[in-house]
């Protein structure tokens, strides 16, 4: 089957290069069909039908995964999806200003997140609610960003989960620096080594900061896993608007390994991420992982995907659902009984209620919050401005105005 990378032509043709590389209508149709495949390089351990496929290179990274572990991964994904759907609904009801759905990317995020050890650092973009979950951050702690009460409330040093970064690609350089620091601290080189994982999307790969992050991490041998979730869409722009080349192949140009994993396969993502982190903590970093997945919902709640993509495509990806294949596998091979699925469902319902009630009860922040942490050390000019403002607002006390 044709795949998107075959739309480009390595051999020069007549006419300008850009024109020569443009896909024909047939290739577009074939490519759309192929987006569910990911090409022959795709690492997959669990098919969409829930069948375990052998992989001589990566099997050993999940050799000790038991049925209980698989159930735990299933539970992670169900809970994260439920929190995501609940938050999406809260936005629709006016309780959140905006929400950034992760629907469809649960396996990529849980697989990567569960591959990390507590000492490993993660740098997210703004869609990494699943990775946050694996770092012990409750979905409640994400709501402030989207309700507008703060820009993130978790302790990033303690959780090893950096604040969400909204400017596309900025965090890749920050992560490269952090990983350099892990190396400078002597924390790299053996089984107990530390590593860093940075999360970004297919659109971000066009950013200069991502390129520079690749360069820095490479020349400083930084223990950094670049985890690119290729969810096929950067708002309305498909991946071929960002690259002629499959994204994982870019790594070669920077001198480190790149690999494409089925991002809807939590087991494969776990295995490949473990391998990549292992390489990094032993000093063989960096590594690029392209998790081939699909953004099942809109870019954000303000987006309308019907304006730029066909519903056929969505329907095709529904058949590759990351949660369903684990469920089928567990059922077919006796890894879980009905009671397990019911208990996870009940837990998800309780989580949704907890999230909802928490959201409704969130207080507005005090006005002085905006002044309080601009600087670590005092700024007399800002302090004066704050005092003037607080004195002004104090004049309204009593409700005369």
């Amino acid at each position: 089957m044709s795949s998107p990378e075959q739309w480009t032509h390595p051999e020069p043709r007549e006419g300008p290069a850009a024109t020569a590389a443009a896909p024909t209508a047939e290739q577009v149709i074939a490519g759309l069909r192929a987006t569910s495949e990911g090409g022959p390089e795709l690492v997959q351990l669990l098919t969409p039908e829930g069948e375990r496929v052998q992989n001589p290179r990566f099997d050993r990274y999940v050799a000790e995964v038991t049925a209980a572990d698989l159930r735990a991964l299933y539970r992670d994904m169900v809970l994260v999806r439920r929190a995501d759907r609940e938050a999406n609904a809260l936005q629709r009801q006016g309780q959140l200003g905006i929400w950034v759905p992760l629907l469809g990317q649960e396996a990529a995020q849980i697989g990567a997140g569960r591959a990390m050890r507590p000492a490993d650092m993660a740098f997210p973009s703004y869609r990494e609610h699943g990775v946050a979950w694996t770092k012990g951050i409750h979905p409640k702690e994400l709501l402030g960003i989207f309700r507008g009460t703060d820009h993130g409330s978790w302790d990033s040093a303690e959780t090893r989960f950096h604040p969400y970064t909204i400017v596309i690609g900025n965090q890749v350089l920050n992560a490269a620096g952090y990983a350099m620091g892990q190396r400078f601290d002597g924390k790299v080189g053996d089984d107990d080594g530390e590593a860093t994982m940075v999360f970004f999307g297919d659109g971000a790969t066009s950013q200069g900061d991502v390129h520079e992050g690749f360069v820095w991490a490479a020349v400083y041998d930084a223990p950094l896993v670049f985890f690119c979730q290729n969810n096929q869409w950067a708002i309305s722009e498909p991946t071929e608007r960002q690259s002629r080349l499959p994204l994982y192949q870019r790594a070669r140009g920077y001198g480190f390994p790149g690999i494409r994993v089925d991002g809807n396969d939590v087991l494969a993502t776990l295995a490949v991420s473990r391998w990549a982190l292992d390489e990094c903590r032993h000093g063989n970093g960096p590594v690029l992982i392209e998790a081939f997945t699909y953004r099942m919902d809109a870019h954000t709640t303000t987006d309308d995907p019907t304006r730029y993509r066909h519903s056929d495509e969505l329907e095709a990806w529904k058949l590759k659902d990351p949660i369903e294949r684990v469920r089928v596998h567990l059922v077919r091979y006796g890894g879980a009984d009905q009671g397990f699925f019911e208990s996870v469902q009940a837990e998800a319902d309780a989580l949704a209620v907890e999230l909802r009630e928490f959201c409704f009860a969130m207080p507005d922040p005090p006005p002085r919050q905006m002044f309080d942490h601009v600087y670590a050390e005092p700024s007399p000019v800002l302090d004066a401005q704050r005092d003037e403002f607080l004195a002004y607002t104090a004049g309204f006390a009593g409700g005369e105005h």
Partner: protein
Amino acid sequence: MAAPVLNKADGAAASARSVQSLTLGKALNLGLRAAMEADPKVLVMGEDVGKLGGVFRITDGLQKDFGEHRVLDTPLAESGIIGTAVGLAVRGFRPVCEIQFDGFIFPAFDQIVSQVAKLHARTLGRVKVPMVIRVPFGGGIGAVEHHSESPESYFAHTAGLKVVACSNAVDAYWMIQQAIRCDDPVLFFEPKRFYHSGFLKADVDTAATPAPLFASRVVRRGHTATVVAYGPSIKVALDAATAAEDEGHALEVIDLRTLSPLDLGPVFESVRRTGRLIVVSEAPAESSLTSEIAARVQQECFYSLEAPVLRVTGFDTPYPAAKLEEHFLPDLDRVLDAVDRSLAW
């Protein structure tokens, strides 16, 4: 502001001769060295700062003495320098980044404004970004485009950053160390034209107690009019004050030193005595630090002003070709002309 604590225990050799006559560039070099000796978390990073010692030699010898893991010759990309420094700061290091020339800072502008400046506020104070961004700035060196600019107002305009400019060797030695010790990110502007000027050599006492970092200072007393400047314009202001003396005018000259937060207390005090203010800067005038100073002085000293605040600045043009820069830059005559206009008001 907490009094700066600085390493004075430099060994017997240093204390034996704590007073040295230094150029501004050499003072910076020794200041960086002292900061690196005092704190093993201090890193120096930038283009050509290691083996070469920087294109201006400000980091000369540091890599040789502190090693390649503390003095990093980075790849050639400014956003990369600043973006990775953010990660290093989050990790617990105190990076001192060199931007090779003022006009090359803009590829890093996004990281500076979006991450360096905002991380502390974004995390409600949980994440500190203690880093210094050194920027050789200003004109007068006959350079090609992008090598003579004064971009400090962009950064003073940005909440979350602190911005300072040194004008002499004594300040250079102390201010760089104080900036490195500061828990906030500091843009550190250095008047590159005077890095190696023999006539700006000064006795630096490395055992002295330095002035606070975020404080402006009266560098020449007077009563006829107040001249406020910073960085390379201090020399112009002082030269103008000397020349004005021949005409019987006693100009008071104030070195701002800190551009954000501004410390305008000494300026207000001075203007209340002189009634006249001339602000000198190489940066274009429009929407700049000089505009800010004029606005604040009219707000605080309205009834003391005998004349409008006047500004002597670079023009609102791109920095011109080198053969024109003497017209662009504030010089002694333009400052004296502004003094005359202020007095004749």
